[in-house]
C-alpha cells in the first residue's frame, strides 16, 4: 500500500433509534434524503472532493442495504486500486471477537486498517449529518496550527446549545473545555462531530482508552476529555455553512424541506461539488394532465397526476389524480391513491396511502407540544379513508397488516 496523507473513518454503526420506523430495516446512514440521495452520500462526496480517496466505513447495525449501496464505491469515485472505500465490520481474531463498544472502540479495532496507509492524520466522520465541507481546508488548518486534534465547530443559538457537545475556546481558538450537552451552556460553539487527529496521538489515546475499564469508549465522552486533561493541543475549526444533524424525525423532515427554501444555501448540483449517489435505472418522470406541481423536488420514475406543494418526492412515486401532498417527504416507490391527502409527513419506501385517506396534520401553534411530523413506515398500507393524525408513527406488522 502506498502511504496516504489522510485516511477518513466514517462511523456508520449506530442504530439511529430516534428515527424510529425509518431505521427498522436500515442503518441510519442509508436513510433516503433529498429526493435521490442517502445521508451517507454527503460525507462520501465531501471526501472525494477534498482529495481523500481512502475511507473506512464502520458498520455493525443492519448493514446489508448499506453495504450494497456502497458496493465498490464507484458512484463516489472511491473505487481505487490503492485506497478507496472499505466496509469495516466487526470481526474475530484468534481469541474471538467483539462488537464495537463505542465510537472510539470501533476505530481502535481497526487501527490495523489505518496503519497500512501510514497516514499523518485521520479524519473521523459521522454518517448522520447533511453538509458540504472541504475537509482539505480543515486538514491544512490542523497542520498549520500544529494541533494534536482539530474539531470542527459551528456557532449555534445559545438557547439551543444544550442539545450539542459544546466547546470552550481561548482567544486563539484553542479548546479549553468540552461539555457534552450542558444544561446551562456558557459557549455557543457546537461540535459538528468532524475530527482530525494526528495519527500517533489517535493511536496513543485509543490504546489508553481501551485499557480503561471505566470508559464508555466514546470520542466525545472519553477521548476528547482525556486529551484535554493531558494538556494536548486541541483546536476548534470554525465552519459556517449549512450543517444539519438528521438524527431525529423532525430534523430529517426539516433538512429535506430546507432544500426548497431559497434562503438556505445547500446547492446539490454545483458542478464543482456534486453530491454523488447510487441511482437506479428509471425513465424520466411524467407530469400528467391533471397535475399541479409547485415548489417541490421530483425525481425520475415518478408518475404525478395529483397536487404537490412544498414537498420532496423520491423516485418511482405515484401520486394519483385528486391526491394532495404538502409539506411532506415521499420516499421511493410510495403510492398516494386518488383523493388521499398527505401533509407534514414522511412516507417511507413502498408504502400505499389508500384512496381518500388523510395522513398528518398541520401544526397547531397553540398546542405545538403535542404536534409533530407523522411517519408512515416502510411497506405500510394505509387503508382507504383512514385518518392518521399528527405525530403518529406507523410500523408494518410482520403479517403485513394494513392500518
Amino acid at each position, binding site marked *: 500500500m502506498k502511504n496516504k496523507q489522510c485516511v477518513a473513518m466514517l462511523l456508520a454503526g449506530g442504530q439511529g433509534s430516534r428515527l424510529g420506523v425509518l431505521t427498522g430495516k436500515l442503518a441510519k446512514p442509508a436513510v433516503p434524503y433529498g429526493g435521490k440521495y442517502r445521508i451517507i452520500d454527503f460525507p462520501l462526496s465531501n471526501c472525494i472532493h477534498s482529495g481523500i480517496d481512502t475511507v473506512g466505513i464502520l458498520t455493525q447495525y443492519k448493514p446489508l442495504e448499506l453495504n450494497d449501496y456502497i458496493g465498490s464505491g464507484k458512484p463516489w469515485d472511491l473505487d481505487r486500486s490503492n485506497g478507496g472505500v472499505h466496509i469495516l465490520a466487526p470481526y474475530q481474531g484468534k481469541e474471538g471477537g467483539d462488537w464495537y463498544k463505542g465510537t472510539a472502540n470501533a476505530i481502535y479495532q481497526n487501527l490495523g486498517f489505518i496503519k497500512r496507509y501510514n497516514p499523518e492524520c485521520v479524519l473521523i466522520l459521522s454518517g448522520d449529518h447533511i453538509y458540504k465541507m472541504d475537509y482539505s481546508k480543515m486538514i491544512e488548518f490542523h497542520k498549520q496550527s500544529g494541533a494534536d486534534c482539530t474539531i470542527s465547530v459551528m456557532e449555534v443559538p445559545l438557547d439551543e446549545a444544550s442539545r450539542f457537545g459544546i466547546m470552550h475556546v481561548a482567544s486563539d481558538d484553542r479548546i479549553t473545555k468540552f461539555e457534552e450537552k450542558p444544561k446551562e451552556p456558557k459557549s455557543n460553539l457546537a461540535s459538528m462531530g468532524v475530527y482530525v487527529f494526528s495519527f500517533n496521538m489517535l493511536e496513543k489515546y485509543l490504546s489508553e482508552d481501551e485499557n480503561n475499564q471505566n470508559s464508555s469508549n466514546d470520542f466525545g465522552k472519553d477521548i476528547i476529555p482525556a486529551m484535554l486533561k493531558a494538556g494536548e493541543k486541541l483546536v476548534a475549526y470554525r465552519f459556517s455553512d449549512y450543517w444539519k444533524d438528521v438524527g431525529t424525525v423532525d430534523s430529517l423532515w426539516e433538512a429535506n424541506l430546507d432544500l426548497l427554501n431559497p434562503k438556505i444555501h445547500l446547492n446539490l448540483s454545483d458542478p464543482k461539488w456534486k453530491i454523488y449517489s447510487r441511482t437506479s*435505472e428509471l*425513465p424520466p418522470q411524467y*407530469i400528467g394532465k391533471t397535475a399541479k406541481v*409547485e415548489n417541490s423536488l421530483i425525481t425520475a420514475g415518478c408518475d404525478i397526476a395529483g397536487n404537490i406543494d412544498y414537498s*420532496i418526492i423520491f423516485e418511482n412515486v405515484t401520486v394519483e389524480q385528486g391526491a394532495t401532498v404538502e409539506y411532506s417527504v415521499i420516499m421511493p416507490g410510495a403510492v398516494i391513491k386518488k383523493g388521499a391527502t398527505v401533509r407534514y409527513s414522511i412516507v417511507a419506501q413502498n408504502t400505499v396511502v389508500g384512496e381518500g385517506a388523510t395522513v398528518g396534520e398541520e401544526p397547531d401553534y397553540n398546542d405545538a407540544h403535542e404536534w409533530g411530523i407523522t411517519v408512515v413506515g416502510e411497506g405500510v398500507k394505509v387503508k382507504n379513508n383512514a385518518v392518521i393524525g399528527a405525530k403518529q408513527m406507523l410500523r408494518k406488522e410482520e403479517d403485513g397488516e394494513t392500518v
Partner: protein
Amino acid sequence: MIYSKTAGIIFSNSNDKALKEFTANRSMASLPFAGRYRLIDFAISNLVNAGIQNVGVITNRNYNSLLDHLGSGLFWDLDRKSGGLSIVPPFIGGNSKTDDELDCILRAIEYIKRRNCEYVVACESGFVANLDIKKIVEAHIEKKADVTLVYREAERPDKFAGTLKLKVDKDEKVASAENALLSKTGGKLTIGVHVFTRSAFNDILSTALNSENPAISEIISEKTGKYRVYGYEHKGFVGVIDSRKSYFETGMELLDKEVRDDLFNKERPIYTKTKDDMPTRYGLYSDVSNSIIADGCIIDGTVKNSVLFRGVRVKRGAVVENCILMQGVEVRENSTLKYVTSDKNAVIGGKAPITGTNRKAFIVKKNQVLTD
C-alpha cells in the same frame, strides 16, 4: 443457455443521413431521445436484457460523443473481463461512402470471428423499442432458421434504405423480402434487428463484401430462397426515427402512458449513462402538464405536451408547448416556444414567440443562442 451462445452487433452509423440536423456531429446511435437516453441505449439494453454479454459497436464517423457515452460499458454491466462491450473503430478511413460501408461489414465479420458464439443479433440504430431478444432468439432456434427478421406492422414504410417489406406464411417463414422503399404502402416492415446463425452471418456478410451494393438487407432480399429466413413480429411499440418529423412525433408518442409502459417495461429496463443530477426543481410559478421531464431541470414557467431532457431550465413566465428540448437548453423569461425541437445547450427566448408547426417543428441547433 442462450446468453453464452449469442453475440450482438450494433451498426452505430446506420442511416445517419436521415436526420442530418442532429447527426452532423454525432452518429445516429448517439442521438438523444426520451429525456435521458441515446438511441443506442435501446439496442444495447435489449441485448443485455436477453443475457447477451458480448456486444460489438461498429463505429464509423463522428463517434466521439458515442465513445464518451459508452465508456467501458459500465452502465450496461458490460465492462467485463472477457467479452463485454467492444468498440470496433474504423481501420484507416476510406475515400467513399462505399468504402465506409465495406469497412463496417468487414469489421463486423472480424468481430464475430473472435467470438465463440452460435448466433448473432445485428442491430441498426434507427429504431426505438423494447424487444424481448431472448424470445426472438429462442424462436430462431426452434424454427432452425438461418435468419430471423424482426418486423412490425406499419401503415407506411419508413425512409431507411435497409428496410425490407416481408411476405410471410403461416409459420412466419419469409416468402419474399423486398426493399420497402420500392413500395408506397405499409405492411410487415423490418426494424433493422436481425438474428443470424453464425454460418449464415458469415455467408451473407461475405457476399455483401463482394457485391456492388454492400448492403446486408440487399443480400437477404436477393437470397431469401437460399436461406431459411423467418419473420418475428414485435407487437409492442416501435418508434422509427427516419426524419426530423418522425423524431418529433416519436418523442411526442411518449406522452401516451401505454407507449411508456411498453418501452420502459420494468422487467427489461433501458440502461443509460447516469449523471449526478439533482431531482427536478419545480418553482413557485411552475405549471407543468402532460410532459416528460428528466432529472436536473429547474422549471418555473409553463410546460405542456413536451419532452424536457436533463438540466433544461424554463425561467419564470416562459411558455413551452409541444417542444422537445435536449440537455441543458435554457428558455429565457417570458418567452414562448411552440413546436420547437432544440439540440443541446441552446439558449432560447425573446419577445417574439418561436413557433414551428405540428408538421414541421422549428429546429434550434446545438449551442445556438436564439434571443433578441
